[in-house]
């Protein structure tokens, strides 16, 4: 096995047992990046030299008995997280020269945990999209088939992990932006409860929804990353004062006889290959001693409409700050997708339309929240496919103003409610593209969905497969 193929958990073991050094591990990742990046374009900015210097320091610390959870682990950071002294563009021309004077909280946390930063990953510009094709710097390709999209907006992050360029990645989700690219790239993507992870220093998209989270090669890695990322932050008033949990320890606790909810609306219109794979996974859960129960959830089609209004409105407000006076370029530098979203948001917030659109959407949001509350009185978690299709061909998102919403239809309701969800691989299509399912849980029950995902991962071997690059 090559060093760059390791999970965080495996790499950590190797580092602590001195089987290899952080410098060797980092060099292996940088070599891998050099080899596959021309095909993939997962990164916007690489910080290889800095990474090697950090690795050198990590080796000294490892030698002195330092056991911080990410010490010496090379990871990638999505380019919408501010990094002190390292260009941060959100893959947008508006910010193509922006060098932040401070670190986002999650960047500070992974750095304090000892992680080595390889670089900043590509995304749909300002996270507007689900393909990474709406990046102003060109699309990222799917490692499983470079004629396919990686999904988005954290497409570079998911591709960097699936292609073994990075041991793990920090991404962010507003609706689907972690789970959907993780699903299309066949890796683990965890979207925490809204407010579980700080948004301070994130290039804001929709502030009432944005949730940073990890993309990893294994469920255990996702639990470890969440331990590092989760917690209250005085710099983000929407972070929860509830203490985070020992997610890794809770992963291995035996949880039996759980009730898994499934809703027909989450299977209708979904690619039959995906439906079959998720049904097989549900049988696996039954073998593990859990029950599957049919429930009725709010039709996800309405969630798309709610999400579209909330997101466009908050986008138009958040993007109002870009004036090219204090930093970045002016409003003529916005790409087509940003223009489209700003226009709809401005319209829906403008005098005479606010009640019909934004206020209406906030009310239906209440109904969606209550709908999940009801469901979680009957069942412990909800499982369904993460996406209605496997990775679509490059070019699919062009001139399709609702592309993202259609590919994210199955994650938008839970995102509107602010619930946590995890996407894990549960099969491969005939075309050898990854198929994934998602497990959604109640507020702050990341430990529960991680535990179930871990149980499934232990009895299947999908995560051992590697793309042939």
């Amino acid at each position, binding site marked *: 096995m090559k060093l760059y193929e390791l999970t965080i958990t495996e790499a950590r073991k190797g580092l602590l047992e001195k089987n290899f050094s952080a410098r060797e591990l980092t060099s292996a990742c940088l070599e891998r990046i050099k080899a596959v990046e021309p095909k993939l374009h997962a990164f916007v900015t690489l910080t290889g030299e800095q990474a090697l210097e950090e690795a050198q320091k990590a080796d000294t610390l490892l030698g002195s008995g330092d056991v911080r959870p990410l010490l010496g682990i090379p990871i990638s950071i999505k380019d919408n997280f501010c990094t002190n002294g390292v260009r941060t563009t959100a893959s947008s021309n508006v910010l193509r020269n922006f060098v932040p004077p401070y670190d986002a909280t999650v960047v500070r946390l992974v750095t304090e945990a000892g992680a080595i930063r390889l670089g900043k990953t590509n995304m749909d510009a300002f996270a507007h999209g689900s393909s990474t094709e709406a990046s102003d710097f060109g699309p990222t390709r799917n490692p499983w088939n470079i004629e396919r999209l990686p999904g988005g907006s954290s497409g570079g992050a998911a591709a960097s992990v699936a292609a073994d360029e990075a041991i793990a990645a920090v991404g962010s989700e507003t609706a689907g932006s972690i789970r959907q690219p993780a699903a299309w790239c066949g890796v683990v993507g965890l979207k925490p409860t809204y407010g579980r992870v700080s948004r301070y220093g994130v290039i804001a998209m929709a502030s009432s929804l944005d949730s940073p989270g990890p993309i990893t090669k294994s469920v255990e890695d996702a639990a470890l990353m969440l331990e590092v990322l989760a917690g209250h932050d005085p710099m983000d008033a929407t972070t929860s004062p509830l203490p985070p949990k020992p997610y890794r320890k809770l992963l291995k606790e035996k949880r039996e006889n759980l009730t898994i909810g499934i809703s027909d609306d989450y299977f209708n219109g979904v690619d039959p290959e995906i439906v079959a794979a998720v049904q097989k996974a549900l049988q696996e859960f039954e073998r593990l001693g859990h029950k599957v129960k049919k429930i009725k959830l709010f039709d996800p089609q309405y969630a798309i409409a709610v999400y579209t209004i909330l997101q466009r409105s908050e986008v138009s407000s958040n993007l109002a700050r870009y004036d090219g006076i204090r930093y970045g370029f002016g409003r003529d530098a916005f790409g087509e997708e940003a223009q489209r979203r700003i226009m709809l948001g*401005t319209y829906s917030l403008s005098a005479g339309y606010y009640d019909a659109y934004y206020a209406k959407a906030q*009310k*239906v949001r209440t109904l969606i929240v209550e709908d999940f509350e009801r469901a979680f009185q009957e069942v412990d978690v909800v499982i369904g496919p993460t996406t209605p299709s496997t990775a679509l061909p490059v070019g699919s998102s062009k001139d399709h103003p609702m592309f993202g919403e259609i590919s994210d239809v199955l994650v938008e309701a839970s995102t509107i409610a602010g619930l946590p969800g995890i996407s894990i691989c549960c099969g491969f299509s005939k075309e050898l593209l990854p198929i994934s399912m998602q497990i959604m849980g109640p507020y702050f029950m990341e430990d529960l969905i991680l535990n179930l995902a871990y149980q499934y991962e232990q009895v299947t071997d999908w995560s051992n497969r590697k793309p042939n690059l």
Partner: protein
Amino acid sequence: MEINVEHVAKLANLPLDEKRLEILGKQLTETLLYIDRLNEIPTEDVEPTSQVTGLTNVMRDDTVSDSLPQQAALENAPDTYNGYIVVNAIFEE
């Protein structure tokens, strides 16, 4: 549905040419038609939700702390003078 796209572009402070306005107008209408299905859901007695995890009136401690040094705060500005950011004049003489 008739949207005054020129007016919306002005509110959004987006410099868009006529061709772009026309395309955006069509796409906006298309998206709004999709959104209109929300009207199928009755919401008369429903309170709006803006914060999902139940936090209200979060205050920070009223204490003085360090802020970014002026130099760092101005680093990204395209034009500065004597520690200020230079902007275009908006009043005529």
